[in-house]
């Protein structure tokens, strides 16, 4: 039985190392704010959210699979939360079980497993009843399949089988096993046999033998003999104790997996609730194949900024379809970085099957998402930091593949503009030729102008809006690079019109 709500055909990875690029993403895009909102205080949900978002999907089909499940969940939020709670209940049922499933005595291992199974019957039943109630509410293939599986696999007959096992495994009529002759004619190859009846017959009560049988009785007060007999019994019971213990482990693994998968959608619900509270809108994005190089949006905002401020924030429209380079130039604090982060977050959320922080978002899938942001220590722009920047860039290039998307924020600003431009130009040329898309926020005017002068239609340029009175709207609009220093204006102001 599988959940398959996150992936069409496999289980999610719930542990293991994340890539080093993941750490940079969290930092540069401020993802912790997003994860906190999704978790709403539950550390398990924080883990699910972060791990899922940091292993993005890379095909349109996969994204659509999740979006379908998400839509079902958004339409039935209470049912989604209820399902999540049922998964937890399955795991919690083990609290009252005593003893261990490890150790020397098969009989105690068996007893422990029987208790575990007994405790699981109610949660399994609850799951079945959920499926009975909610199947017809769901349209997504993911949830429909899960409900079908539950109904089929946890049928009434199956419950009877489980209960039968629980009775039989207490061996009310004794233990039956077969054996063969091993070295030294000792009993070997024990196979425990399933007794046909579990009610004691009159023969059992009086321990009579059948005509084709021989019987040995351990004499009373023969302690060594009694021990030998229980060792024999343990030999027989060992395999079935192991089988039952492993089976209950499997059931618990299933509940753990269900918790993880439904947890992601509960986290999505939490996010929507948090955003709604602040009056922020969301929309389901349209994923496109990588080759088309689509990137267009309307009403796109930085979701983390929105969550932090708790109110509506400036949004932007964007048309960068077919662009291999989008360069955002202009004065600082004009909204450039915010736009960059907005794009990064939207891309990540789209590729996790989530809704995005926009009214419309239609973008090609990136094979991988990379960020190269100036680090805070670099704000002083000492020359020694160039080395660090270049090292990070090299590391990025090691991992980069075609169809990746790279977000650069003031990269190579740690050196003078001439040097920085030269370095940046080479990197831009190299990466774009390798079919890697770049979105580059920079104040290096010379670089931008040089690129604009190529006249290439796949290079797009944006500028933060500056009104005539000099104030900023934090909107970013298409515009060719303009020198930021306004030296001409100053000169004229000083020397007047002569």
């Amino acid at each position: 039985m599988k959940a398959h709500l996150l992936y069409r055909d496999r289980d999610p990875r719930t542990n293991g190392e994340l890539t080093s690029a993941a750490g940079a993403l969290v930092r540069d895009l401020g993802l912790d704010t997003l994860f906190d909102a999704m978790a709403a205080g539950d550390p398990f949900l924080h883990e699910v959210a972060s791990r899922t978002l940091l292993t993005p999907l890379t095909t349109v089909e996969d994204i659509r699979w999740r979006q379908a499940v998400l839509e079902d969940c958004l339409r039935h939020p209470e049912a989604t939360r209820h399902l999540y709670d049922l998964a937890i209940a399955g795991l919690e049922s083990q609290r009252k079980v005593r003893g261990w499933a490890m150790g020397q005595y098969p009989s105690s291992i068996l007893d422990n497993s029987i208790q575990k199974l007994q405790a699981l019957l109610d949660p399994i039943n609850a799951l079945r009843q959920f499926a009975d109630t909610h199947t017809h509410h769901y349209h997504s293939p993911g949830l429909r399949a899960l409900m079908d599986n539950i109904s089929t696999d946890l049928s009434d007959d199956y419950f009877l089988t489980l209960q039968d096992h629980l009775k039989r495994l207490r061996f009310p009529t004794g233990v039956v096993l077969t054996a063969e002759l091993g070295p030294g004619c000792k009993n070997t190859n024990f196979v425990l046999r399933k007794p046909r009846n579990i009610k004691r017959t009159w023969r059992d009560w009086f321990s009579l033998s059948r005509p084709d049988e021989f019987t040995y009785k351990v004499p009373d007060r023969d302690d060594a003999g009694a021990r030998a007999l229980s060792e024999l019994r343990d030999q027989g019971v060992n395999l079935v104790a192991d089988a039952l213990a492993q089976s209950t482990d499997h059931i618990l693994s299933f509940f753990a997996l269900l918790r993880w998968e439904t947890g992601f959608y509960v986290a999505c619900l939490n996010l929507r609730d948090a955003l709604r509270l602040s009056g922020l809108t969301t929309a389901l994005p349209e994923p496109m194949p990588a080759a088309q190089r689509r990137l267009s949006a309307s009403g796109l905002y930085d979701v983390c900024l929105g969550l932090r401020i708790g109110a509506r924030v400036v949004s932007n429209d964007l048309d960068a379809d077919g662009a291999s380079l989008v360069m955002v130039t202009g004065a600082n604090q004009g909204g450039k970085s915010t736009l960059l982060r907005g794009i990064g977050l939207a891309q990540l959320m789209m590729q996790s099957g989530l809704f995005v922080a926009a009214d419309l978002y239609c973008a090609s899938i990136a094979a991988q998402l990379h960020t190269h942001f100036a680090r805070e220590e670099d704000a002083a722009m000492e020359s020694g930091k160039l080395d660090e920047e270049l090292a990070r860039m090299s590391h990025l290039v090691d991992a980069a593949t075609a169809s990746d998307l790279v977000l650069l924020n003031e990269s190579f600003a740690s050196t003078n503009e001439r040097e920085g431009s030269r370095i940046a130009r080479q990197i831009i040329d190299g990466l774009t030729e390798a079919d890697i898309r770049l979105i580059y926020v920079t104040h290096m005017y010379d670089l931008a102008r040089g690129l604009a002068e190529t006249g290439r239609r796949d290079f797009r340029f944006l500028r933060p809006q500056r009104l005539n009175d000099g104030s900023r709207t934090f909107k970013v609009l298409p515009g060719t690079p303009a020198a930021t220093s306004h030296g001409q204006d100053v000169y004229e102001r000083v020397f007047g019109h002569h």
Partner: protein
Amino acid sequence: MSSETSLSPSVGISLGLTSLLFEGGDSPAPDPPEPLCFRDLNLDQLVASIVAGREEYALVPFFREPLTSRETVGYRQEVLRDIEEPAIERAITSFAQGMSSVRQRLERADKFYYAVQQQDAFLRSAFNYVATLKELDAALLEAKPRSRGLASFADYLHDYISSSAFEALASESSGVRAGLDGVIYRLHLTGAYVHVRRDVTEEDYAADVVTTFARFRQGRVESHLAKLRTYAEMNHVEAAIAELVAKLYPQEFSALSRFRERHQGFPDGRVASFDREVEFYLAALDFTKRMRAGGLPMCYPEVAESHEAFGAADTFDPALADHLLSNGKSVVVNDFHLEVDERILVVTGPNQGGKTTFARMVGQLIYLASLGLLVPGTQARLPLPDAVLTHFERGENLEDLTGGLEDDLIRMRDILDTATEDTLVIINEVFTSTSLEDAILLSTRVLRQIGDIGCLSVCVTFLDELASLSKSTVSMVSQVDPKDPATRTFKVIRQRADGMAYAEAIAQKHALTYASLKARLAR
């Protein structure tokens, strides 16, 4: 003891069939005493090291019988060369392992308390025996050994395997085994009762449980199998159950007990003695490999005729080498040779310089060669003495001078009485418990007697005079490092004796020579 009805094919080697150690029907002596030279030459340590790990074969007696015929030396070297072939070595090692396990099972058969366990161990041993021999036969047929020893055993083995007696053993053992392998029975444990039945009707319960829960299977989970202790011996409950099973399968169990009665006499006597004798060669080859692995050469020695020139190149004391290699230290090699009329090696030089080691080396070399084995060195040509006699000083003896000296002389006399011109006599630092004048006198007399007898001799002494006693004397000196006289090199080379050389060098090192003192004191 085999009875008339027994089918055992064992034949005693006393019927004159070939041993692997001797051609022509000789057999090894059953329990020879340790030769007197062993302790002095550290041969006891060497032999112990060679046979280590093979105690079950009692190989030490084989090392106590040196050969006196060059034909037998050749016979043994042939076998060694065969066993150095990887295919033959593998076949024989595998055979030895098989036979070892056959023996272990037979021992167990006697030790078990319950009859059915004894019979089962016996059957397994026989089964193992049949398989081991068939495998060796096939391997030898393919490998085609060239030595007389192995070739004749291969023929014998092949005839034995084709014999009706062996075939009966083979077919009966596998028949009884097959019968027992097919035994399966049903135990119903309830309370203090065990009901035993033959027919099995119910299904595998563990498999049923697994099938029931298969739908929940996720990935791999840990095993919860308990580790249950098992013992080889049956307890009385198991024995009682076995008796009941025997009642359910009377034919199979009576076949088992009859088997033991009918085949009491296996294994075959010649196969058993081959198993033991071949270990002599395997042990020697393992030792050779150990030396080679440590970067030291080993070779097949040629036998020199009486009074022919002989010697060895790049050779070493194997007992010492074994010890040094296992402590990660390096080994110094030496050469020596004696021309046609040279009979006595006199070895002088500074103390602790390797003189005694050298003498032991010559003794060990010649002894190993006389066992028909490989010896240390890149090449060697060695005589086959009729005896090896030694006289080493017996440690720090603080008894009074006269007592010690008399014992020494008596022992010397016994040696000289026994020695012939084909004997090897090794003398190490004798007559040290007396005055210098007496030592020179006695030693000279003894060496002249040795010269008269004409036997081979190695004599280690501090008396330089002895080194130039006669034409048949060869002087060898242990070397010091000229740069640091305190360093021992363990090199011994043919050289005129000069006891003063060492003293002079060490004095110079400390600037205490006459010339240095003069310069130092002229203030």
